[in-house]
């Protein structure tokens, strides 16, 4: 039963980490927008919508990550965060008209595989329950 609890928590942790990447990716995008030719005055910063949006998204993402860590191992949550790289590449291609090279597409697939394999370890709990030694 303890393994089932851990499995449910791990799934929740994965979901939270996934949601976190949906926040940190636009955060990076907005921060990039907001810090190019930044106006370093109080008024400048207050009127810097991208910068403010970036900070807000980053804060929400951080809270989500902390909650993910509450429920799951760091070695599960952290690899999941790498998905943000994929979102950043995709949004850069859509909004900034940057082309995605073939190597980058392969890299995207490789990251997804890596995250899936890291997350597959969640199922080890089921194996351990039946006395099967998990790797």
């Amino acid at each position, binding site marked *: 039963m303890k393994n089932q609890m851990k499995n449910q928590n791990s799934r929740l942790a994965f979901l939270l980490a996934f949601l976190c990447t949906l926040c940190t990716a636009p955060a990076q995008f907005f921060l990039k927008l907001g810090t190019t030719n930044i106006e370093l005055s109080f008024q400048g910063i207050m009127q810097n919508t991208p910068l403010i949006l970036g900070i807000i998204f980053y804060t929400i993402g951080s809270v989500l990550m902390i909650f993910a860590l509450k429920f799951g191992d760091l070695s599960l949550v952290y*690899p999941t965060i*790498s998905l943000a790289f994929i979102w950043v590449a995709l949004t850069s291609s859509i909004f900034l008209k940057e082309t995605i090279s073939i190597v980058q597409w392969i890299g995207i697939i490789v990251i997804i595989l*890596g995250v899936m394999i890291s*997350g597959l370890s969640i199922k080890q709990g089921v194996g351990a329950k039946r006395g099967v030694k998990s*790797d």
Partner: protein
Amino acid sequence: MINWFAILLVVIGTLIGAVGSVFMKKGAVKFNFNPLDQLRNTNLQAGMVLFFISAIVYIYGLSLERLSLIYPLTSLTYLWVAFLSARFLGEKMSPRKWLGILLIVIGIFMITYFAG
């Protein structure tokens, strides 16, 4: 010409960030939305401070060398985190998890280094 000092800075920055993640994990266990409790959550605070320091170190390294060289190095964080979480958080690493991490590092390198 590669600015190796910049590379070193970024590598150190990622390591500091990874250590920060370990503290964040320890602090996350006790996290709630009560500010009074969090004022005593030293692990969480240490994690945040380390994140901040790693960002400064990273940005400094970034100012000295091209983004196309520096950005791929951020994938190192995932290696550090894997080692540190096994060593200091008692999390069980398995060959499968190591494979996953390796793929992520390779994948990040492919996305960031070969930017069209």
